[in-house]
């Protein structure tokens, strides 16, 4: 079979023996090492930004993105153990948006864990979201891995409780980019204390995977690709042998390694953020390890959006990005270099040149 695009199957075949044993979503490769009973996969959908127009009308494009991700996740073979939704289900935090989004998520065939995003939160401070999805931060264990969900999009109490005349304005101010009235995200002292206690119970050789909406690292403050107390959270993860942070919010592929902590960003189902090489005239400040996304085709509304399929083997994340009208990508931990890398495009000579003009 000769095709212009690399199919998952062929992609797998090209990966070589070591990585080929990891579980690709659409293959039935037997695992040849590690405790296979403990290997498992999960899917990650994020940043749907369901947006209410009026009455029964919602922005069609964002609806289609979440509907498609849910439907495709349900087709995965082998089946993932669970799904994580990474935050920003709504655009302006209204009941209409959260209800509409929750209805779409309810079609998932799997247990679903939800992370709170700033677009879900700043209208009613997460009250209605809690009615639908429960706690803002929590943890659980699954097949030898300790999972933690944090609410990382809190900010200073004064900004949240005293500065804005209405909840609606507070929501809009936090939704803005490059907004001088904005405020940096943070996990906050209360949750950090909770996390400290939560992690005390976990043995240091247990893999820890932390889900947050904002990056628990500092990338770009103007768009809140940022968590103010990131270093303090990182310090709590440092004693662990394997720690991973998976975050949404940035709508693009990013990955990084800080000491023992691997960082992975996930795609949005709604829209992509601009890509450094084709958009920014200034420095992007992305982690140096990250290969930029190729440019989106503006006609195809799903291009450069997507969802992820994650293989957690031996405690390390292998992130498969399912990208529409684009080349699927895989970011996996490279044990030799001690950091996550794009398995196909990390070498600059292997990249697809981005389209920089029309």
């Amino acid at each position, binding site marked *: 079979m000769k095709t212009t695009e690399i199919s998952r199957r062929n992609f797998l075949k090209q990966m070589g023996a070591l990585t080929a044993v990891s579980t690709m979503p659409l293959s039935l490769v037997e695992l040849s090492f590690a405790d296979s009973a403990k290997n498992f996969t999960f899917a990650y959908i994020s940043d749907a930004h369901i947006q209410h127009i009026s009455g029964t009308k919602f922005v069609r494009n964002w609806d289609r993105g979440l509907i498609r991700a849910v439907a495709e996740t*349900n087709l995965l073979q082998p089946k993932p153990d669970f799904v994580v939704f990474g935050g920003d289900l709504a655009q302006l935090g209204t009941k209409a948006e959260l209800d509409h989004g929750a209805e779409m998520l309810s079609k998932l065939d799997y247990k679903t864990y939800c992370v709170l995003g700033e677009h879900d939160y700043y209208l009613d401070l997460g009250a209605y979201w809690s009615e639908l999805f429960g706690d803002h931060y929590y943890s659980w264990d699954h097949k030898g891995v300790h999972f933690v969900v944090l609410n990382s999009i809190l900010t200073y109490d004064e900004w949240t409780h005293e500065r804005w005349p209405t909840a609606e304005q507070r929501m809009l101010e936090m939704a803005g980019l490059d907004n001088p009235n904005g405020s940096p995200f943070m996990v906050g002292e209360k949750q950090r204390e909770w996390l400290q206690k939560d992690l005390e119970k976990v043995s240091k050789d247990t893999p820890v995977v932390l889900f947050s909406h904002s990056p628990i690292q500092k990338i770009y403050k103007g768009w809140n690709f940022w968590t103010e107390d990131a270093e303090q959270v990182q310090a709590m993860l440092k004693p662990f042998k394997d720690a991973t942070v998976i975050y949404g919010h940035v709508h693009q592929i990013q990955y990084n390694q800080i000491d023992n902590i691997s960082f992975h960003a996930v795609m949005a189902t709604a829209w992509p953020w601009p890509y450094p090489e084709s958009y920014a005239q200034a420095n992007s400040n992305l982690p140096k390890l990250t290969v930029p996304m190729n440019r989106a085709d503006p006609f195809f509304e799903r291009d450069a959006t997507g969802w992820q399929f994650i293989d957690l083997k031996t405690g390390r994340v292998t992130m498969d990005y*399912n*990208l529409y009208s684009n080349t699927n990508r895989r970011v996996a931990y490279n044990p030799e270099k001690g950091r996550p890398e794009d398995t196909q495009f990390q070498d600059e000579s292997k990249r697809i040149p981005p389209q920089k003009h029309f």
Partner: protein
Amino acid sequence: MGKYGPLLLLFALVFSLMHLSASDTPDVKVPLGLPVVTYPENNPQTPAKIALGEKLFNDKRFSVNSEVSCATCHDPKKAFTDSPLKVSEGINKLTGTRNAPTVINSIYFNTMFWDGRSPDLEDQALHPFVNPVEMGLKDHQPILNVIKSDADYTKAFSEVFGKSGDEVTMKEVTQAIAAFERTIIAGDTPFDRFFYGGEADALTEQQKKGFDLFVNEGRCVSCHVIEQTQAVFTDNRFHNVGVGINDIQQEVPDLAAEYIKADLTAEEVDVKVLSDKRSSELGRFALTTEFDDLGSFKTPTLRNIAVTAPYMHDGSLATLRDVVVHYNNGGVTVEGNPVNDFLSGGIRPLNLTDEEIDALVAFMEALTSPEFAPMAQETGKK
């Protein structure tokens, strides 16, 4: 010469111009509006090879009951389709699941078949011979046997390829067929004369309005590509536009799982999708098992579209107007029906008026090449 005289003349013209050029990549003068043609290095065009290919293309002995040739479904008199059939009829009136795409301008396609399961014309030609609902052979040997025992073929294969007897394989057979198919190109439509030829009155006012809609509010041009110097009217990509898969939405999870597990070869897919309508509706996914390919089919060229009804991969839409209405509804044939979950991101409701829909149809009727215009008149379409 009959009413297809102009068509034959065109072939003769292309052919003779090719003949004049001695280089390996002959500089063929193509009709107005078409890109330059290139030929595979391992299958250069020669007049004798093209003639041999045409003979093979029309030979019914290559089907199990000697009733079906390539030309049965790709009939020159029907713009190289089997219009007005919805889906093609093979041996014993057996029907497949897909509408026969035209051979015209297939030299410009990057992949063949609606799902692109074949990389080139040579490979494509292999499959219908052995598909149970097309020409029905068990394998390709009967074709080679006919060729061996036919004096004309023996002579021609010897001349063209320097091979005879058992030396002749399907490689040579398909190369000759492909060489013939690569001569079937057609441009010079009213649209071409208007846009590339500078003839301001080649299009009617309604067609000009349709052209404007085609490249703007209609969003057609994003897949049916028109460039500054040429137009093939396809992006050679695959899209789920809400045809076929809309009817099997409840069955997608089971069907998809089946195909993911089976991991079929292109040959197996060829047989399966033409014999099972539900499988057919999975589109390119049946081949790649990529979610992005679910329900997706190749963008067909729109050249000569007015003479190749019915439309879409399954022939389910009878008229060009039905097609535009389907797109205007945002990927559903009947307004209000549910959109499928895997719909291509380019498809969304267009909010075109009836008048605008008519203009788009009028524009597509201006994409008929002069050699096929008599057919348009026959079917009542300009």
